[in-house]
């Protein structure tokens, strides 16, 4: 029996070669084409012959898993120990780590808060928001302006900024929530751009593309938190509060109502959930965290400019949520950490790091559409 020739590897190779053609010229593209096509065929060839071996390996794994199940108690205690180890590590990072690493971790912390906010909107309530960075920007600019123009400290401007952000969340939600799915996404995308352009062009208030500098770091009990290690603990506290509150709300009737709306809007209105009100809550609640993160970002950088709030930023936050697992709180934490730290680690291959990150995301979405820790098989359905 003649086997059918497999064309797929050739197509993949041609596609990748075409992608590279404009950057590296014909020669490089041809080399890439040959390398990829031969290697995929070789891999396929190997796979055919290693299939029995793989099957045996799988069996061994299953046996191992069974053994693990019986030793569940031991693994549980091991898990507990590793958890405490992680906690200790997190608590004592500033004592041994370099400033650079602490800086990255602070950024990761800010993104965790942001991503948790977006997780409420997209992961729990299922409303695709492509302009989430708008709330982040409003929070950052509110603190920047309140601090530099009115001389308010961090602690008095934080609640004010958050109120402003939540209010703008309502403002966007009221017209936008009449729309569904893709249409909602487009409107939120527009909102994000409007806020960025406003910051870029309203020179008299926001100083346009020059940005606002000289923002004070927060003070706590009379000491400035401008030092990196202090700011690290400061962020840590905020991250803990965020995760705690979001988790509690998720486990309550409010969280259940959000998930019900995500699963089936018509059915949830038919069991008595006021869908409009709850979508509004989700928007406002998400905006609340984005605003907090924005104020923290402004306090950390002591400088804000429109450059930090581009559409790519919205995409990055959304990638964190989807990578970690829509609706999964630990997943989103992991997603945020990975997407902040990975690009830093990949600095070695400068040119190709975005390519590597992008293909990594594509592969993840193919093989694990529910995200890294997306437990209940929730994947994105628009």
């Amino acid at each position, binding site marked *: 029996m003649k086997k059918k020739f497999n064309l797929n590897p050739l197509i993949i190779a041609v596609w990748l070669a075409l992608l590279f053609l404009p950057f590296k010229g014909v020669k490089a593209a041809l080399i890439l084409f040959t390398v990829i096509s031969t290697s995929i065929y070789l891999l396929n060839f190997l796979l055919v012959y290693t299939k029995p071996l793989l099957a045996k390996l799988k069996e061994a794994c299953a046996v191992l898993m069974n053994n693990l199940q019986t030793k569940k108690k031991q693994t549980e205690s091991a898990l507990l120990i590793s958890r405490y180890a992680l906690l200790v590590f997190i608590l004592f990072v500033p004592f041994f780590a370099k400033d650079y690493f602490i800086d990255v971790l602070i950024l990761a912390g800010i993104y965790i808060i942001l991503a948790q906010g977006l997780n409420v909107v997209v992961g729990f309530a299922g409303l695709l928001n492509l302009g989430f960075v708008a709330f982040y920007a409003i929070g950052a600019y509110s603190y920047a302006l309140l601090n530099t123009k009115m001389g308010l400290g961090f602690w008095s401007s934080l609640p004010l900024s958050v109120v402003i952000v939540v209010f703008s969340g309502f403002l966007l939600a009221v017209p936008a929530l009449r729309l569904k799915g893709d249409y909602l996404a487009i409107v939120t995308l527009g909102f994000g751009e409007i806020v960025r352009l406003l910051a870029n062009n309203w020179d008299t208030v926001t100083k346009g593309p020059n940005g606002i500098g000289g923002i004070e770091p927060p003070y706590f009990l009379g000491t400035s938190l401008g030092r990196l290690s202090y700011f690290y603990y400061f962020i840590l506290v905020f991250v803990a509060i965020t995760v705690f509150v979001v988790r509690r*709300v998720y*486990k*309550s009737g409010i969280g259940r109502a959000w*998930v*019900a709306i995500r699963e089936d809007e018509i059915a949830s*209105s*038919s*069991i*008595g959930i006021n869908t409009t009100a709850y979508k509004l809550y989700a928007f406002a609640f998400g905006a609340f965290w984005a605003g907090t993160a924005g104020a923290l970002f402004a306090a950390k950088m002591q400088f804000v400019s429109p450059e930090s709030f581009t559409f790519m930023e919205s995409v990055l936050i959304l990638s964190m949520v989807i990578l970690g697992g829509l609706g999964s709180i630990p997943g989103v934490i992991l997603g945020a950490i990975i997407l902040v730290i990975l690009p830093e680690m990949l600095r070695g291959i400068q040119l190709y790091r975005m390519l590597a990150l992008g293909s990594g995301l594509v592969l993840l979405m193919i093989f694990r559409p529910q995200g890294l820790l997306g437990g209940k098989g929730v994947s994105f359905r628009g």
Partner: protein
Amino acid sequence: MFLLEVRDLTKHFGGIRAIEEVRFRVREGHIMSIIGPNGAGKTTLFNCLTGLTRPTKGGVFFNDTDITVFKPNNIVKLGIARTFQNIRLFKEMSVIENVMVSQHCRTKTSLLSSILGNKAFMSGEKAIRERAMEYLELVNLEDFPETLACNLPYGRQKRLEIARCIATEPRLMLLDEPTAGMNPQETSEMMELIKKLQALGKTIILIEHDMKVVMGISDNIAVLDHGVKIAEGTPDEIKKNQMVIDAYLGKEH
């Protein structure tokens, strides 16, 4: 006493007349069936009663309140709940969560107390869970509270939808083809369940194609054809009605 009164209800979709001046009344505690060939407007009628579509003309009165223009969630709060013809469960939620979320309109949820997790909140959650288990027991699903709804077999999904419906504590339940696609065994179980609901004091309106079910449990039957009510009466009256026979089997020429 009449619990529900439908007055000259009309719904047009553009040029299509889905329902035309339908009127009927439902006595409290009765089971009423609505039958008719496919496309007769039965589901549209349910959508009008539950606020999912707004009727073109006419009115719906529940317990003497005009609910014609009410939103779905307010109608549920007054005491009308429904199931859907093609099951609409919250697929990625567990069985018990499906029932817990359905008690939403009967329980208070405050942001602050859920964040603080205080005593009142905790006992409230516990009560919701316990009540959810009771409703699951009523439909014989108490053995799988943590299964995801999408992993249940078809017959159980249908029953879960009914549990979700009861959890809103309705006085009137609208069941859209509860026995569709079921085998005889499951169908007779479903009939038992519907009778049990009636015994609990619920009023029920049923859309159903299975004549054994309809004739077996209905107190009253209304027949729709092309959006018009062509007959109404007890099962015996409907069986003998010439217009009904014509609608179902076609006229003799």
